């Protein structure tokens, strides 16, 4: 589902160029508006769609699973700290509205002070847990045993490819 730009809405502010992780959003040399220079390299990460202040970027779903005529629009509201989606199907019978929080604290007020943390010891280095896990993923509320692992869930890996 590569992105495309509505030229009439774009004002060439460069936010999408700045945020694109694939560096494929560029500014057209003649029209001074953004465009996707290489649609088949697009991850469909929606970063540019969410970052665009004018909602000038949309996503075109591939016809094999998203029939033409559908619409997936998103509004990332930084001041409210939410993201809202609206998904319309071509037949007009389905029209989903979704809303979710993207931050619980004002932006820039909860940046971890990593420089003040002590250096990891050997046991931390050899552990499969990442920094501040399990505390940060809130799975240690009931002690170490509450961690969900294959073993704790009495599961095991099977050899080969399976679904």
């Amino acid at each position, binding site marked *: 589902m590569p992105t495309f730009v509505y030229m009439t809405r774009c004002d060439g502010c460069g936010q999408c160029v700045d945020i694109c992780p694939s560096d494929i959003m560029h*500014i057209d040399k003649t*029209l*001074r508006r953004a465009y996707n220079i290489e649609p088949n390299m697009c991850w469909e990460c929606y970063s540019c769609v969410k970052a665009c202040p004018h909602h000038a970027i949309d996503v075109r779903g591939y016809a094999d699973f998203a029939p033409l005529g559908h*619409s997936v629009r998103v509004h990332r509201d930084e001041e*409210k700290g*939410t993201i*809202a989606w609206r998904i319309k199907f071509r037949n007009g019978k389905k029209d989903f509205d979704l809303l979710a929080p993207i931050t*619980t604290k*004002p932006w820039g007020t909860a940046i971890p002070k990593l420089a003040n943390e002590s250096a990891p010891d050997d046991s931390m280095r050899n552990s499969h847990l990442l920094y501040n896990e399990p505390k940060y993923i809130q799975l240690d509320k009931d002690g170490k045993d509450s961690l969900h692992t294959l073993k704790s869930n009495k599961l095991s890996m099977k050899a080969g490819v399976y679904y």
Partner: protein
Amino acid sequence: MITNNPFAELSATIPEFAMQAYVVAMFLLVIGGTVLDMIHKKSAQYFFENAKKAEKDAKRTVSGGEKVSMAISTLTSEVLTSSEFQNTRRRISHLFTMYGFIIFVASTAWLIFGYASVDAATPSWLAAAWHLGAASLCFGGYWFWFSIRVDVSAEGVKWYDLRLADLFILSCLMMATFALLWSATMGGGTLNMLFFAAFIIASTTLFSTVMWSKFAHMFFKPAAAYQKRVTKADESREGLPADYDLTDPAVQAKYPDIPEYMGTNPPNMGAGIRRERANHY
């Protein structure tokens, strides 16, 4: 110096009638160029088709009073203060350029049609407006050209790398720059005539290339801004999600993640990615 009317002094060399005919010719070129531009780019057709599409998706009818109020707020917000620009520097630069251009062009026409004779008593404020308009246009325009222009700020293109897209801003800048130089060197012989010729070439280029430049944006941008307000008012919102009030109990009941993670009265979270300029390359 800035209270001198350069057209009064020019009238000793070029007859008043020729100057007035030039202004009329430029005006007609702008009208013709805008019409050709609209036919070529089909911008008017796109605009009306888009408006019709939005009307089909409308959830409520917008009253005549609301439309008048939206037209007034479009005028005071998007047209007069260029509020559509998210980039503050670009907005300020655009305001300097826009008002400089309007004042410069209006005062040029006024000076030529009212005071373009050697014995004319030109009001000093009018001649000053002509110079200050050109200076404002130069300030906003050069600021844009050297640092804000997106090719330069986002694409790493050098300021001297010229393209067809630069026709509008460059001819606009050359017109104001050479107008000021021409006025400053008044009575300076060949150099003065050289600046005058450059001023005329630049202004003729600006007004005769409307079809290939973005000159016509001043006509359709207000219409597009008004249409955007209408789509918000009739709740068609161009397919975008609704603008939710997070403190509304109905919204909180429909989306329980909001009160659970953000509380029932979430604070204003401020600016996120827009706290920094978009230049992280």
